[in-house]
Structure formats: structure tokens, C-alpha cells
């Protein structure tokens, strides 16, 4: 007998509370973790969550990390609403970075204002094309996008590895797997001296407003949502299921591709094997933590960025391993999914024995 039974009416309020509960549980288990490692939890959390924000540069880094997370999560959320599970945004990010980086390499030495916009457009197209492959496989052969997007993420990663080890390797790079450093026309210039925050954060901000309007007002987003909530009702209304797949995967590929350009034309400044610390995967958590809502995603993206920063600070100040960031991300997702289960289900009470 299953232990869980569906609740007759899941509480809408608890659905908003569940991310906060998940954050609380993550902190709780996190303190136990710190205790067991012999660290003072209060000090550790100070290093993790307060210290990164105690300087201007810390805020700058927060924006640098939150930008791509938010941008990718906004695109993913559209698909998740329609129950199209693109979990390979990392691959689309790499595809976008390759396309944008290719433009930068081709235009090396050209000092023109259009290089950077062209890179962004190329990245958007590259990411969208990488998303188009699973869309085609799904609509044509009914191959589950959950599998194909993930597998294509590895393909993209190997393609990147091939390019920076082969055709695009910097001839003066001492055989390191990396491309040339991009010229200034191909880079987002930092806003402040010595800090890395740049105009790419504006793309994420504009996209967030755009996605907020799109999801709350457009008929297209309505159709996608209906397709996710009640596929039979979408068919009944005559909304195309194939179109839902295409739009979901193209949009999320597009945003991930732009995020990829933001990295190579921003903090990284070239193509190499470390262009993304797993933003494409972390954005999945951001999308759900933000309740697939454009505003929620902005908040969740900031939190996730803070986790990245805190993880780095913890490595330095507390000599904790780099895995601590992934551990916190994992706990957060686990507790969020767990809390969501209990929004929709409850434990089945043990039946009382017969008194007769």
C-alpha cells in the first residue's frame, strides 16, 4: 500500500511557502554538516552568506553569477510550465558560447560596434538550434526530450573540447585548450574599475521583464500552460502539441545560448573548458525554486548566485572542498522537491484496528 495519498485540494499558499521551507531545511542540515566537519555553523554561515556581500566587488560578483542563472531559468520555466523538461540547458549554453565565440574569433582585429551584438545574435541562434534538435526528435520520433537534451549537453561539451583543442586553439597559448583572448569589441566592458559586472546583466533584467509580460499576458504562454496542466484540454481547444514542444525548446535554447555568450564575452573572455560552472543545470533549480514565475526566478537566481559565491568563500576561509557548492545546491533541490511532494500529497494515516 502506498504511503502517500493525494490531497483533495493542494494549498496554493503552501506552494509559495515550500521554497522557504526548503531553504530553512537546507540551512539546518547545512549546520549539521558544518558541525560534523568541526566548524562553527554560525561562523560558517557568516562566511557563506554574509561575507560575500560585504564588499562592492561581492555584489558585482553576485550579479555576474545571477545574470546567466536568471536568464537561463526564465527560458526553462516556459517549457517546464508546458511540461517540456529541457534539462540540457548546459549544452545549449555551450552551443551559444561556441557560436558567439566563433564570431569573436572570426572578427578578431575588427574594431566595430556591431561585433558584440552579432555575437549575441549568433549565440541566441546557436543555443536555439541546439534546442531544436531534441524538439525535432520529440515531434518526429516521440523521443523524450528529458533524455535527448541531457545527452546533447555532453555532445556540446565534447564539441567545445574539440574546438579549443583543435581548430580554434590559440596558437600562442602554449597548447592549453583555449582560444585566443577576445578583443575589446567582442567583450562586454566592465562598468566599474576592477569589478566584473557588465551590461550582460541588463539582458537578464530585460528578459525577466519580457518573460513576466509573456507569461502573464500572452495567449501563446496561456496555450503552453494549458498544454502542461491538461493536455487533453489543449487538444480539445485545438492548441498544437508540437508547437508547444518547439516553442519551449527553442526559447530555452535561445536564452541559454545568450547566457553562453555573456560568459565568453564577459568574465571568461575566451573559449575554454571552464566557461560555465554548471549554470545550465543550476538554472533548473532556480526555475523551480522561483515557482516558474518570472519574479520568483529573479529572487531564486540571486540566492543561487550567493550559494556559488559562498561556496568559493568557504573554500578559502574554511578550507572546505569545492564540492560544498554542489552539496548545497543538491540539498536545496532535494528539500524543495520533497516539500512540493507534501504540498500535493499527505501521509496516509495508519488505519485503526476494528473494535468489535
Amino acid at each position, binding site marked *: 500500500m502506498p504511503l502517500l495519498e493525494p490531497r*483533495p*485540494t493542494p494549498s496554493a499558499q503552501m506552494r509559495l511557502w515550500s521554497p522557504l521551507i526548503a531553504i530553512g531545511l537546507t540551512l539546518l542540515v547545512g549546520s549539521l554538516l558544518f558541525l560534523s566537519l568541526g566548524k562553527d555553523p554560525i561562523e560558517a554561515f557568516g562566511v557563506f552568506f554574509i561575507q560575500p556581500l560585504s564588499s562592492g566587488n561581492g555584489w558585482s560578483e553576485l550579479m555576474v553569477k545571477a545574470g546567466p542563472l536568471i536568464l537561463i531559468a526564465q527560458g526553462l520555466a516556459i517549457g517546464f510550465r508546458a511540461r517540456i523538461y529541457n534539462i540540457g540547458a548546459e549544452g545549449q549554453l555551450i552551443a551559444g558560447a561556441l557560436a558567439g565565440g566563433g564570431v569573436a574569433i572570426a572578427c578578431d582585429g575588427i574594431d566595430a560596434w556591431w561585433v558584440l551584438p552579432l555575437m549575441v545574435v549568433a549565440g541566441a541562434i546557436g543555443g536555439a538550434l541546439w534546442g531544436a534538435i531534441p524538439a525535432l526528435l520529440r515531434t518526429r520520433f516521440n523521443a523524450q526530450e528529458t533524455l535527448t537534451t541531457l545527452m546533447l549537453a555532453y555532445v556540446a561539451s565534447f564539441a567545445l573540447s574539440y574546438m579549443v583543442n583543435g581548430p580554434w586553439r590559440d596558437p600562442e597559448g602554449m597548447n592549453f585548450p583555449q582560444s585566443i583572448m577576445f578583443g575589446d569589441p567582442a567583450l562586454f566592458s566592465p562598468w566599474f574599475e576592477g569589478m566584473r559586472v557588465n551590461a550582460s546583466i541588463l539582458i537578464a533584467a530585460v528578459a525577466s521583464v519580457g518573460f513576466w509580460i509573456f507569461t502573464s*499576458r*500572452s*495567449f*501563446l504562454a*496561456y496555450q503552453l500552460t*494549458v498544454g502542461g*496542466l*491538461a493536455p*487533453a*484540454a489543449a*487538444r*480539445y*481547444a*485545438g*492548441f*498544437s502539441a508540437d508547437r508547444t514542444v518547439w516553442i519551449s525548446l527553442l526559447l530555452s535554447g535561445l536564452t541559454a545560448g545568450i547566457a553562453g555568450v555573456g560568459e565568453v564575452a564577459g568574465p571568461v573572455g575566451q573559449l575554454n573548458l571552464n566557461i560555465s560552472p554548471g549554470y545550465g543545470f543550476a538554472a533548473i533549480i532556480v526555475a523551480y525554486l522561483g515557482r516558474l514565475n518570472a519574479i520568483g526566478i529573479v529572487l531564486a537566481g540571486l540566492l543561487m548566485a550567493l550559494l556559488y559565491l559562498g561556496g568559493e568563500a568557504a573554500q578559502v576561509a574554511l578550507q572546505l572542498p569545492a564540492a560544498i557548492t554542489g552539496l548545497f545546491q543538491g540539498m536545496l533541490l532535494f528539500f524543495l522537491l520533497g516539500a512540493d511532494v507534501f504540498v500535493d500529497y499527505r501521509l496516509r494515516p495508519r*488505519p*485503526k*484496528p*476494528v*473494535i*468489535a
Partner: protein
Amino acid sequence: MTTIPPPFSSPPPGALRLELTGITKRYPSVVANDGVQLKVAPGEIHAVLGENGAGKSTLMKIIYGAVQADAGQIQWNGREVVIANPSEARRLGIGMVFQHFSLFETLTVVENIALALDEPFDLKRLAERVREVSTRYGLPLDPDRLVHSLSVGERQRVEIVRCLLQEPQLLILDEPTSVLTPQAVQKLFETLRRLAAEGVSILYISHKLHEIQSLCHSATVMRGGKVTGTATPSQETPASLARMMIGRELPVCEVPAYTGEALPVLTVSKLSMIPDDPFGTQLKDIDLEVRRGEILGIAGISGNGQAELLAALSGEAPGRAEAVKLVGLPVGHLDAGKRRKRGLAFVPEERLGRGAVPPMSLADNATLSAHAQGLVKKGFLRPKAAWEFAKTCIQRFDVRCGGPGAAARSLSGGNLQKFIVGREIMQKPIAMVVAQPTWGVDVGAAAFLRQTLIDLSRSGVAILVVSEELEELFEICDRIAVLAEGRLGPAVPKAHTNAEKIGMQMSGLFTSATDREPDHAAA
């Protein structure tokens, strides 16, 4: 109404099979059962009569242990019991046949029965017992047949036999005839009478008054969670029972004649379709024509191609262009949205999840199919227009709900159906296809819906109704055709046919039934 004491109302104490006193069950928004009393004697066939939402199902679930009452006592054979779960109920000798079957289609009859047993079994011996019990009660069943090859009536037999194997002293049947042909209903009644003669008590839940009159010894009538009276059905009239059930006169539909020109609007020719679902029904050479100002009824038991035909008509399963025509133009290849734009409205059987998106508000659900009515402009939603549309629909079609902002799933079946029918009518269709218009709908709402459809047809709309309820078809339709095993019989004016002839066709006896069809053949 006065309460007529049933013949079994006062047997000596302790002789009652089941006695419920003061059963109360509260849900957050509704009191489903409010101090319910019920007495059932051994060998008695006792009807529980009431509209949807009257609390019948909750009461039965309490007896079967699937739901726990908040207050009240259950006396079983004279001693007080607490029934914690269904397996406890079965151990006491209570069996229940549900309205919707829970059978595995890829398993055989005997395997399905074995799965439900609480004790260890030997499959061969069990098959013997199934055969023996099923013949004894006139429910012939082959234990080795796969369930997907059984008709719905046969599947119900599996459920009944499954209960009978446990040698129950009380058998609960929830709306058992909704899936049966008139002939099969008679067979079921014979079985139930035989069981009652052996001392098995039967609780028979239904809203079909004539069935209760012909079968049941006594009846408990419920309304709004309370018992409104007990009665001896044979001494009542359908009108007096209905009054007890709904608290007022049984509404009757007015069927005026159509005076306009009866031009064909929706035409289907040589429609054949192989379903995607491996257990679906193949449609074979379906021809039909619905004209302006008429309601064409399609009778038959669900599972005979109804779902496939409806999907082919609505556009949810597009096919050959020429197979379906709307005012002479081929539309068979178009999806549901495009057909709706050309004036074909559709009301599906499943209201939640198909006709409406359950967690969305009524206003948002208006946009679902009526977006072309100014609810979307340049790709953007117009929430105010949708709100107004829903509000008008709610007022015009008497939808009882919390307003346009109420979630679709918060409405009762009847009110949601009124909303969906209203939403489709407000788009001014030229043809409308309606599946099971009053399935699971209370008597008042059903009468309203039927009258709405009649009025709509008389305004010049061609309407096709697919329904399992024969009485309903006879009440509202002008012509009736039978769909059985994926074939559609000829549409006959309702004056030239009757329930018995239609029942014969439902059983798939097309050729013999149609051979006998012409009126002069009787000579």
C-alpha cells in the same frame, strides 16, 4: 412528502443486517452526511436514492470502510463495529461493485479476481470457483479470457463475481446500470433478486427511478447529505420519488416543432478510423447527417467507438478531409480549433481536464475555446473581456459558482457542464456535438441542459448528442442511431423505434435488428 414505513422497517432488534445511526461526515467545505440513518434487513434490496452530491457515495464509502465517519454508529448483524478499511469490510462480509471498474486489461478474468483476494489462492481451483459461482447466479464468465476482450457488461460481471466469491452478506452496487443495455439490466436484476432470495442484502445506489421501482423493496432518499425520507418504491410514482429526491416537481422538457428548413449541416461519410489506443475501437464506414433544427442522438454503450467517433468529429483526431463535412465543405483534416472557427462546437464527456482546465478560473477557461470571441487581441490575453464573457455565461446559463474567478474544479459536475455548454453556445455555432450531456448531473441541472439543447436546435443549429442514457435520447432527440462495435446503424425517427429495438442493436445484433426494423415486417 409523508414518510411511508418500508416493509422492513421494524424487524425484531438484532435481526437487521446493517443499521446506521447518526452518521456524520464533514469535509472542509461541505457536510457530506448529516446524521444519516439507514436500516437494511437480510435479503432486502434497499435503494439509496438521491441526486449527485446528495451524499450517497460518501455514505457507501463509509460502509465499505474507505472513508471514516466523524460521528455515528454502524451496527452490523446487531453488534457495533468500526470499519477501518475496505479489507476489514470484506472480512465482515460487505462487498462493493464500483461504478468505475478497477480491472487490469492485460490480465485474465481469474487473474484479476485473484489480485483482489485477501487470502492465498490456487489459480486453477479459483478458476473452477469463478465458473461455478458465475453460472449459479446467471453471470456467465470465462475465467481464462483476457479482460480487454470483454464487453463493459462482462467486466461488470467480473466485479460482481469477485464480490460474490467472498460470500458477502451485503452487496453495494453504485449506479450499476449506467453501462448496461436494457436487456443486460434485466439480467442483472434477475441475479440480484436471486441473491436477495438467498438472504444477501443489497444496497442499490441509483437515480433511475423506474429501475428502483421495479427492483427495490425499500428506499432511503437523500438530499443535501440528509435523509429526507424512506419509501416503498412500488407504492410510489416516479413523480413522488422525484419530489422526495429533489424537493420539487420533476421538470419536463418542452419539445416544440422546428419550422425552418432542415438543411444538412454536419455530414459524415465513410468514416473509418483505426485508433491509436490498442484497446480502442475501430470505426467502420460511419455515415451520418445532422440537419438544421434537429437533435440526432447516438445511443450505445461507451467503448463501442463513442470516444473515437467524438474525437473524429471534434477534430481532436483529424483524418481524411472528405470524411467529415460542415455545410458541404470538407473539414475532416482540420484540428479542433480550426473546426470551431467554422462553427462546430463540441462539449466533451470529460469536463475536467478536457472541456476545462481544472486549476484555472472560469474566466481563464472561457479563453480555452472562446478566444476568438474577442478574448485575445494581437496575441495578448484580454482578462477583462474573458471575465465579462464568463460572467455573462454564468448568468445566462445559471451556473452556480463563486463567480468568474472560481477554479473549474471547484464546481459541481452539473454547474461545470452548464458553463461549458454555455461557453460553446455563446460562440454561436452552426453545429454542436455533445457527449453525455447530463452524465453525473443532478436532475434540475439535467432538465435545464436538455431544454437548452432543444431550444438551441430549434434556433436552427444542428446538434448531435452521444449518450448512454436511452431515456434522455428519447426525451430530446428527433432521430436516434445506435453505435455498436464501431458501426453506426441507421438514424430512425424516435417515433418509429423503442428502447427494446435500440437495446437489441446495442448488443451488436445489427443485421437482425435492422431486418426486423421496417414497420410492415411485423405482418
